[in-house]
């Protein structure tokens, strides 16, 4: 990337000189030529299709796209469904679930990841063995995680059944079959998968902190708790930013985890907005509603991420 900028900066000087050779002109243009395909692909397949989705959400598309604009009917329907809480509409369930899942998933992953990282950072023996054990779940796909936890949490197959066989017959854990708790099983599986990775990120951050600062604080009489509370955690702020962004995007795209773990849950009670979008666009032949829900998801993400990024990144030049 650095080379590219330098080359481009050089261009005017070169170009101004008369009679430059073909070769050097080509050399100047090369970075642009090389970048052009990926630039074009991004423009078309990311931003182009975002615009196309926005357009479709204002049409009356059913099974296949139709191009006649028919107004914001899809949004009106979603708006109405947003407030249908009893019995919950599928859209209402999806956004409430997104709130519960997004908050718990990000919060628990950050807390657990930081806690594990701090423990591992105590120069304990066997760290080389422990670290990969925690990190390993991240190597699995959501589908594998989902299926494994589905079996583990199934009352007839997994944990409950095993404990019953061992004699603890009063044990009861059927969250995965329960419409009110099924979303928390998604949180459990998601946290299990991602917290090790977040731990690795924090561990790298901790290793990057200058030991001199710690020593200085200790000499000043700071307790271990104060040390972490006042010095270490504030210094880890950039890691929090990276971890938050990684987790937020994982949370939003957890479609496959929900499908593999719960197949949508009892009566669709485990749906996330991504499931809603897929169901309506591809299974129910209501492409306009599906597109509208996708647009709303994009808007929501933008509304959360952009201010956060802005507030974090603006302090950099200081």
């Amino acid at each position, binding site marked *: 990337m650095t080379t590219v900028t330098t080359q481009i900066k050089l261009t005017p000087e070169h170009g101004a000189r008369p009679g430059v050779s073909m070769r050097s002109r080509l050399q100047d243009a090369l970075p642009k030529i090389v970048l052009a395909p990926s630039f074009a692909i991004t423009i078309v397949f990311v931003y182009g299709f975002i615009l196309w989705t926005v357009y479709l959400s204002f049409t009356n598309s059913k*099974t*296949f796209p139709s191009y006649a604009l028919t107004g914001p009917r899809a949004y009106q329907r979603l708006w109405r469904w947003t407030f249908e809480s009893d019995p919950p509409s599928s859209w209402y369930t999806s956004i409430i679930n997104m709130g519960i899942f997004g908050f718990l998933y990000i919060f628990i992953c950050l807390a657990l990841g930081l806690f594990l990282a701090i423990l591992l950072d105590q120069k304990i023996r066997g760290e080389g063995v422990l670290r990969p054990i925690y990190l390993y779940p991240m190597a699995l796909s959501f589908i594998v995680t989902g299926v494994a936890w589905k079996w583990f949490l199934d*009352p007839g197959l997994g944990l409950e059944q095993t404990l019953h066989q061992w004699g603890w017959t009063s044990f009861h854990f059927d969250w995965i079959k329960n419409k009110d708790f099924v979303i928390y099983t998604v949180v459990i599986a998601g946290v299990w998968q991602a917290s090790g990775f977040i731990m690795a990120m924090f561990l790298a951050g901790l290793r990057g902190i200058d030991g001199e600062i710690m020593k200085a604080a200790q000499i000043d009489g700071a307790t271990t708790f104060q040390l972490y509370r006042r010095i270490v955690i504030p210094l880890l702020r950039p890691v929090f930013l990276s971890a938050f962004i990684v987790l937020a995007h994982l949370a939003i795209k957890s479609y496959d985890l929900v499908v593999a773990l719960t197949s949508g849950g009892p*009566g669709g009670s485990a749906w996330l907005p991504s499931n809603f979008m897929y169901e309506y666009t*591809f299974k129910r032949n209501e492409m306009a509603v599906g597109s509208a829900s996708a647009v709303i998801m994009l808007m929501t993400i933008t509304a959360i991420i952009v201010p956060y990024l802005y507030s974090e990144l603006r302090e950099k030049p200081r």
Partner: protein
Amino acid sequence: MLRKLLIGTALGSGLAFAAHAQDVKEVEMLHWWTSGGEAAALNVLKEDLAKQGFAWKDVPVAGGGGDAAMTALKAMVAAGNYPTASQMLGYTVLDYAAAGVMGDLTEAAVKEGWDKSVPAALQKFSVYDGKWVAAPVNVHSVNWLWINKAVMDKIGGTEPKTFDEFVALLDKAKAAGVIPLALGGQNWQEATMFDSVVLSTGGPEFYKKAFNDLDEEQLKSDTMKKSFDNLAKLVTYVDPNFSGRDWNLATAMVIKGDALVQVMGDWAKGEFNAAKKTPGTDFLCYRFPGTDGSVVYNSDMFGMFGVPEDRKAAQVALATATLSKSFQSAFNVVKGSVPARTDVPDTDFDACGKKGIADLKAANEGGTLFGSLAQGYGAPPAVANAYKDVVSKFVHGQIKTSDEAVTQLVNAIEDAK
């Protein structure tokens, strides 16, 4: 590669000959028949075509109701990469035909006399705008009970003739410590069972008005409320672990004797067959109590796509083989359904199959052959899915009373229309 071959041959021996000689001897078939009985049934067609020299390119997309397969199909069609044929259900065929991507089999249909032998109710879905666009493979009926005979004998039960007798039978099973009703808690299975409950509670006339004509008066009537109450009663007999279970696992519970009965379409018989069970001695098939004389059907169709000329011959061979009497008989014996043409002899069928064929014929003549709403033969997919939503939410407790269920049903169907 193919194009190169074509051009090469054309240069050598003239275009007309080349186009003929290079016909692609292959059918590409998208389907969701991946479970034991189903896969065995499809194999019959595969072998039929192999005898004629056509290779079979399988595109299986697993998942009971075919949702995943339909998504795959949509992607293939959007990319212009049409399969030769795809397993399709009801309104989906018409949707694709309206989009103008289906082929035309009328020539073969006239030659083989399909319009006379295929029931009119099915032709509503296989003929679009006067053109044959799909070959019906079978007729399934949804209103069946599948009962484990050993369990039935143990509890001393007899065939239930009314809904109340059915409930009494379930009580007996419960008292004997068996799971009375095997159900998979996925929305399409719950809605499929509810189709039968509605037919049983309200009778044929009511079913047709409510679920085929979508008459609002009927949808919010007291009879519909009663149907939901009856469904709620049935749900009290399932095991606590039913949510999310696949239909063939529920059938397996009946086969193994863990459960007494499953309410399921006759594709369940394919699973009994695959487990080497015999009707009458190992298991029993009865019509859902109170629905004798009516048939709530769905039908698997092979939708035929508008493939290029060089693949056309293979497509016609596939369609003709599909609707041949020998295949209709051989296939449906394995699959558990009944032939999609009424002139196929029932000699090879077991007791359940013979009853199914006779019932279909009677229902076809008596006007009691109705499309299943849960299976996409009662109304277009948006409505059918709205219906499944409501039934599923009722079964799992998001919708608490039958009053509320009826209101939701009316709203959801109105919304989706």
